[in-house]
Each structure stands twice: as structure tokens, then as C-alpha cells.
């Protein structure tokens, strides 16, 4: 599968995503420049973590207007696979390619830590390599990862199975204590209605090597890579 990783000014985990895909998982992956207008034949576009444009106004608010985002929107409309990690998730929400918004962590502090996630829907291009209910351990590192959406929207997300990942505790419960940032309904990752755009706050690209943070993140990339086959 061909992966394009977008580099916005202020992207930080773009190199990590390329490393995970290319050097660890042996995928064909290349960087895309935010001023590009084409996607270089990518079959999955990754919007990486970081602080695009310093995230100075609102996370993702400025990156959303980058020239490449027009192509990403068109690609998504045509059913292309788009994965937004952390800042990428924020950009996708700002660009209205995903529902809801990401606001400041309820602690008001940046959090870098490992969390446990439960796969809520394994029948999607982003999660099919996992079992439903499987627990994935991955790091989060963000200051604004509190997912919010109106109640009726949340209900719909739930009914349609668009909530793909939730924060859970060591007993598998989505408790308030296990919710690192105050996200509504403990949401860690959501997909769009067509299930071809997925955003998550945890960093699968930082969980692909046993010596660095475990390998749970591979499930996400393997799911996507499996789609092409």
C-alpha cells in the first residue's frame, strides 16, 4: 500500500509516522508537502501529530486551509482512506471531515502517558486487524484532546458504530478515572459515516516497536494495509 504523510509547518510526528510505516512495517510511504496540490498516488493519507502553525488560534484551525487539504477533502469524498493522528484528528474535525471538536484537556495540562484503549468496532478499514473489544496500549501526548460533540450527534455516532476507540481502565471499563482528557463518552477515536476517514488522539506510530512503547499501534496500520489486499 502507498502511504502519503502530510507535512504541515509545525508537524512533529510526521517523521515518526514515516519511520513506523517505512522502516518498521515495510510499507511504501512518502512525505507530502502542505503546499502540494496532489497526493502523489497515495492510497492512504496520514495527517500526523504536531502543532501545525503552532496551533496558535485553535488546534488545526489554520492547517485546515493548507492547499493540500482541498485534495485531501476530494480524496475523502471519493472514498479514499484518511488517518488523522492527534493534530491530524484536530485538523480533520476543523475541516469538517470528521464530526465534533477537540478542546483543552479538562486538567488544562499537556499529558504524555500511556493509555489503554478498547476497540469498539472492529468492522472498519482502520480496526479490522483487531478483535472487537481488544485492548490496545498506546501513548497519548496532547494538550487538547477532549472530544466534544452535541448529544444527538454522539447518539448517532454510537448507533452507527463510528466510535472506534475508547479510553478504558485496567479492568476494561470506560471509567471517568481512565478518561485522560475529559472526552465525552471516553471517545479516543471516531470515524466518519462512510468509515473512510478516521481520527484518533493516541499515537499508533509510537507503538510499533517492542523496545519503544509496545506494538499495539501496528493493529491500526495493519488494518489499513490489509484493505488494499
Amino acid at each position, binding site marked *: 500500500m502507498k502511504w502519503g504523510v502530510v507535512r504541515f509547518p509545525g508537524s*512533529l510526528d510526521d517523521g515518526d509516522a514515516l*519511520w513506523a510505516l517505512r522502516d518498521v512495517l515495510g510499507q511504501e510511504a512518502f512525505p507530502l508537502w502542505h503546499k502540494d496540490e496532489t497526493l502523489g498516488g497515495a492510497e492512504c493519507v496520514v495527517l500526523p501529530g504536531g*502543532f501545525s502553525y503552532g496551533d496558535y488560534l485553535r488546534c488545526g484551525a489554520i492547517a485546515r486551509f493548507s492547499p493540500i487539504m482541498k485534495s485531501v477533502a476530494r480524496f475523502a469524498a471519493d472514498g479514499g482512506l484518511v488517518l488523522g493522528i492527534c493534530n491530524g484528528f484536530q485538523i480533520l474535525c476543523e475541516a469538517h471531515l470528521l464530526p465534533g471538536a477537540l478542546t483543552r484537556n479538562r486538567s488544562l*495540562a499537556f499529558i504524555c502517558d500511556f493509555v489503554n484503549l478498547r476497540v469498539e468496532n472492529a468492522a472498519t478499514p482502520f480496526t479490522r486487524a483487531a478483535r472487537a473489544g481488544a485492548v490496545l496500549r498506546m501513548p497519548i*501526548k496532547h494538550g487538547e484532546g477532549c472530544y466534544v460533540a452535541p448529544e444527538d450527534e454522539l447518539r448517532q455516532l454510537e448507533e452507527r458504530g463510528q466510535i472506534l476507540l475508547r479510553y478504558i481502565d485496567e479492568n476494561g471499563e470506560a471509567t471517568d478515572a481512565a478518561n485522560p482528557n475529559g472526552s465525552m463518552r471516553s471517545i479516543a477515536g471516531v470515524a466518519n459515516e462512510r468509515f473512510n476517514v478516521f481520527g484518533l488522539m493516541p*499515537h499508533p*506510530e509510537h507503538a510499533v516497536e517492542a523496545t*519503544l*512503547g509496545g506494538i499495539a499501534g501496528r493493529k491500526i496500520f495493519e488494518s489499513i494495509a490489509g484493505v488494499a489486499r
Partner: protein
Amino acid sequence: MSAAPIALPGEPRVDLAAARAHGLSDAEFAAIERLLGRTPTFTELGVFSVMWSEHCSYKSSRKHLKTLPREGASVVGGPGENAGAIDVGDGWVAVFKIESHNHPSYVEPYQGAATGVGGILRDIFTMGARPIASMDSLKFGALDHPRTRYLVNGVVGGIGGYGNCVGVPTVAGEVMFDPGYNGNILVNAFALGLARREDLQSARAHGVGNPVLYVGSATGRDGIHGASLLASAEFDAASEAKRPTVQVGDPFTEKLLIEACLEAIKTGAIAAIQDMGAAGLTSSSSEMAGRGGLGVELDLERVPLREANLTPYEILLSESQERMLIVAEQGREAELAAVFERWDLHAVVIGKITGDGRWRARFKGDVVADIPVAAISDDAPVYDRPAAPPSAPGAATIPRPAAPAIRPAPAAALRALIASPNVASRRWVFRQYDSLVLSNTVAGPGGDAAVLRIKGSRRGLALKVDSNPRACAIDPYLGAIATVCEAARNVACVGARPAAITNCLNYGNPERPEIMWQFVRGVAGLRDAALAFATPVISGNVSFYNETEGRAIPPTPTIAMVGTFADVSLNVKHYFSFPGDAILIVRTAAPALAASEYADLFGVASGQLAPIDLARERRLIDGLVECAQRRLVRSAHDVSEGGMAVALAEACCNPTAPFGAAIDPDATDGDVAALFGEGASSVILSAPAENVEVLREVFAPLEVREIGRVSAAPRLVIGRDIDEDVAALQRLYEDALPGRLGRHD
């Protein structure tokens, strides 16, 4: 020779009073007039005042710093560059340095700490190295001091705010609370970068006629006189009022600068590059010209400004952040400009390199400063200030109230120690830092030293920053040695060979002989220990005038040690991982309560420090490295604040699931010093029982004592004194700081 520079209309008169107001002594002013053969203009006076300030000229410390060992087989590049570099194998060099941002962080904690991180990162990438790790050494006043919480929140927020946004992981650090810092906190920021050896850059200008390019943020009135006033004069109530314009950091622009500068360096079109740090444009331009034995001419009206109407004086002295100065190879400016354009940055030609050895600035056609480069870069005064021991230890420093003397039972003492501000888990701090970005962090904060891999190689690095002001306050020489030993031990515990040191020497007013004595003794200790470990001191920084109302901070040499792994997969964790393993302790001397957390907490008079045998210290370090290389141990943990009992409790806290330890009664036998003493270098190892004999040989002539076994049941049992649930201890350890600094749920 050009005409003498002109005074600008409305500029203040230059006389002795003006010189004094600029912090120059009468003798210094006379020397300036002698060097110039005339009275300086007001602009020139400003230039001299910053370049001859303690902060820029190292006039009180230079003589002593020269005694530090700088050479070593692995050292790359000559002294005098922006940061030191060592060869770490496979063609890679590591470039690192530590710097203080103490006063700015006290005045404005968030921005002060943030710009401290930004400044040290620029020192690294200006060398052509990509920054890959940061550390922070933080000293605050007592936790219950009214300003402490505010300062902690601001400083930690600022370090995270900048480091996280610029994409450099903060992988280790230290935090201490002590009343000695109530009115003068310390914020020392460290950064490390990696470069291919052939890509290392120089800040030595060459090529008469080569253009000088300005890149980065526009210049504002930020921190004018920041370096000279803030970092070189002590604090009092009045200085809070006469705040200079605070520097605000912009990590986003810094990130663009990192990428653009590293890309620009690759073109080969750069002759020299330096960041505009303290004394901004003045120091960067004069230092680059000075190193190359050349001159430089600047057209100040070409400097990009953030506000209209800055005077030449302000443009030259501004400390606006995120700015770089580049000497380009003539004719290749456009190539460089294109690289910066791609990153939405503009490179502007503001001057050129000349052959006449003069540092000349023009403004709208008029020459406003014309000074021999050497006068500001090399001819700054050097002082051999008198040094004399104080009448009693501690007489020069802020008095520390002694705690009421109590003697709790060992179990109660352990519970109190593990939750004390200087022992408890620092997670509240480092959870606010991205320690993972760049995918090199094999071991982040929480262990003895951070471990980083070097991608595409088996090699790796270990790093840790340490200080021990309590010991330094009792004996500045032994305290400095103890600090180097601790840093080396932290690095060796994870299995890396200590390779080189960078240091930040934080002291009071050097014009006072007792302070100068502390400094001289501290440098001597650093030298002796660095020689013993064969770890050259490749870079560093001195911060004097850390005083409030005439009282100095405890002497605080901060030591950052970098170690190397030939095979990073052999790194060792600090926690137990196998029930039944033998628990061993290796020490260089008997532990004592002097300068310990126990003494501080329970009101034990501290007493003298025991002498340190550096040959034995070296043995311990070599033994630890060998243990890792031969895979002889399953864990190694340095005994530091709180002594052996606390170190054992920490080693039980395996992050996957806690283990226990059963320690033989005769290991401590109710002896408080054995349980909680510090001072001597000690490490706790766990190893398969069959390795114990080999370990004795590895560490000989140091004694390896088998003191107990790792147990599956998570209880810490130490003889008849202590029998505690590890999970409960862990809760005390983890909850103490959040409980006192404000919860982050």
C-alpha cells in the same frame, strides 16, 4: 580608516555616570576609552556594556574554567564554538550544552523557562545538529513558600509549552525544593543534537565580502539589557519594578528555523552560522567575525523590525527570540533564500564580512559604531577575584531553618521520606512533557538516566542532569565531586559508559570572596571528578549573581552527563523483574546522614561530608558498564535522596506489576544511616543468584553485598524494621506532588 562614529540626535551623553548606569566599572570605562582612543558613542557604550557583562564575557570565571579538562579521544571540534561535540560512533557526533535562564524565569516563569529552552536548542542546531533531546534542572523555593506553586506551574508549563511544540522530547531532568531558592529559582535547560561528523558547522566567519544574512523573527524591544541586567546583577525588590520588556517565545517559528537551517546547511552555501542569543545581533556578529580574525559591517536599517522607530542601540542590543545570523558564501544568497522561503521565513542581507578587523554598524548612512572586533570579543577584562572561605559554612548563603528534631520509627520514616517533596515521584512534572516524539526514547523520565537509540545503528546514548546543593553548601569541593559521581552513576546504571560532561555553574555574587571561594572550589571538584572518569567538560555556562537581598543561593553546580552505548539493546532498567533474583548492594563507602533528605526532614545536624575516593568511584562506574555489557544484572538503581530504603521501594515498582523485596536483617540492623543515609555512592542490583560470584569479581575491590531476594508478593520487608505494602508506598510516592501542586486529573 573611516570617520569616527556620530552621536545620534537626542542620545544621552556618554560619561562616567552613563557608564556606571550600564554596569561598567570606572576602570572598565577607562579601558574602553583607551581601546578606542576616544569616548564611545552611546550606542557603543551599550555594546560594550553587554559584551563586557559577566554573562557574555565570563570575566570572573574564565581563569578558572580554563583548568577544566576539555580534551578527550572522543571530543570533536575546537573550543569556543557554540556547543561542544563528541564522537559517538558510526560517524555520528552528539552536540550538547546546558544553560541557565534563572532570572528571566523568576520574573516571568512561563516565558522565562520557554525562552530558555528555545535558546539552548538554537545553540545546538546552529552547529548543524538536529536537536533530539532536552533535559531540565529546576530548583524552586520551599514548597510551602507563597510564590513556589505559581513559579512551578509557570516554569513547567513553559518548558513543556516550548519543547512540546518544537518537537524535541524532554527525556530527563531534576526538580528540587529548598528554602535556599525562595527568592531566586534556578532553571537550567539542556539540549542535545545529533549530526553526521562531516556536517558539523562552525561559527567562524571566513571570506571577506561574504554577505551577512538575518533569518527568523523580526526584532523588537525584547529583553534589552536582558543579559547584562538580568543575569549579571542580583535581585532586589526594585528590580521587579524595572522589568525590561519580557521576551516571549515562539516555538513554531523555532521549529521552522530548525528545519530551514538544517536544510540550508546541507546546501554548503553557509560559511558560518550563529544564533542571536544574549546581546543578540551584537554578540553573534562580533563573535563570528572575531573567531575568523575578520571584521564585519552591518546596515541596521535593513534589520527586520517588529515595531517602528527602534534606535540603533535597541536594534543592536535586542534579545528578541528565534533569530539566526548567517554568513553566506558570496553569490549563493539566492539559494539560501529559496530554502528559507520554502519554510515561510525570509533571509535578509544586512551586512558583509570585511578584512579590516573592525565591527562597524551603520544606520541610514551614518556610522554609529566602529570598534575593533577584538575589543568586544577578546579584550573583555578578565578578573582574578579574591576568594576566601566563609567564617562558617553557610554564612554566605540564605539561612535554612532547621526542622525540629524527631526520630520516627523506620517504617514511618520511610513513608514520610517517600512522600517528601524532594523524593516523591516527578511524574506530575514530566507527564507534561512530550518525551516520545522522534521515536528514539528507549527509556524516558522515571528511571535513573534517559536512554535514546540512534536510528540506523545499534548505538545509543544515556543522559541525566544532577546537582546536589545540600552537599555543596557544606563543602563546595566535595559537593561538586559528589554531583559528578551521581550523574556518572545514573548514566552507568542504565548501562552506558559516561563519555562527556556539560555543566551550569550557579552561584551568588562573585565580587564577594566567600562566593568566589565556593566557585573556585566547585570548579576544582568538577575538574578532579571529570579527570577521574575521563569525561571531558565539553561545554557549559556560568550563572553568577543568584542572590536576593544580599543572600546567595546554595552553591549549585549542575552537571549533565552524556554516556554512550555500543549496543543500546543492552540497557538496564532500574526495577526488579524476576522473583527469586538476588538483591545486591555495591558501595564505595559507608552511607552517612550528612546532607541527606533524612537529616533535612527530621532535624539531624548535618555534619561534615566524608572524603570521596575517586578511584573507587571509577571502579563502581566501570563495574556497572561491564554488568550491562555482559548482561550480568537484571536491574541497577542508584541510591540517592532517601537512601537505600527508598531506592529499594523504587526498584519494587515495576511499571507492569509491583514486586516485593525481602532484605536480611543484618543488611541494616536498625541502623538509620544504613537505611536512609546518602553520601556514599551506592547502587542496588538485582541478578540471578548464579551471577553473584562473577559480580564480586567485576566490582572488586569494592564489596558486593547480597542483602536479600526479589519476591513475587509486593511487600517491602527490610529486616525487622520495615514491612510495607509496595502498592501503598507507590501511592504515597505518586500522589505527593500532585497533592501539593494542584491536581491534574
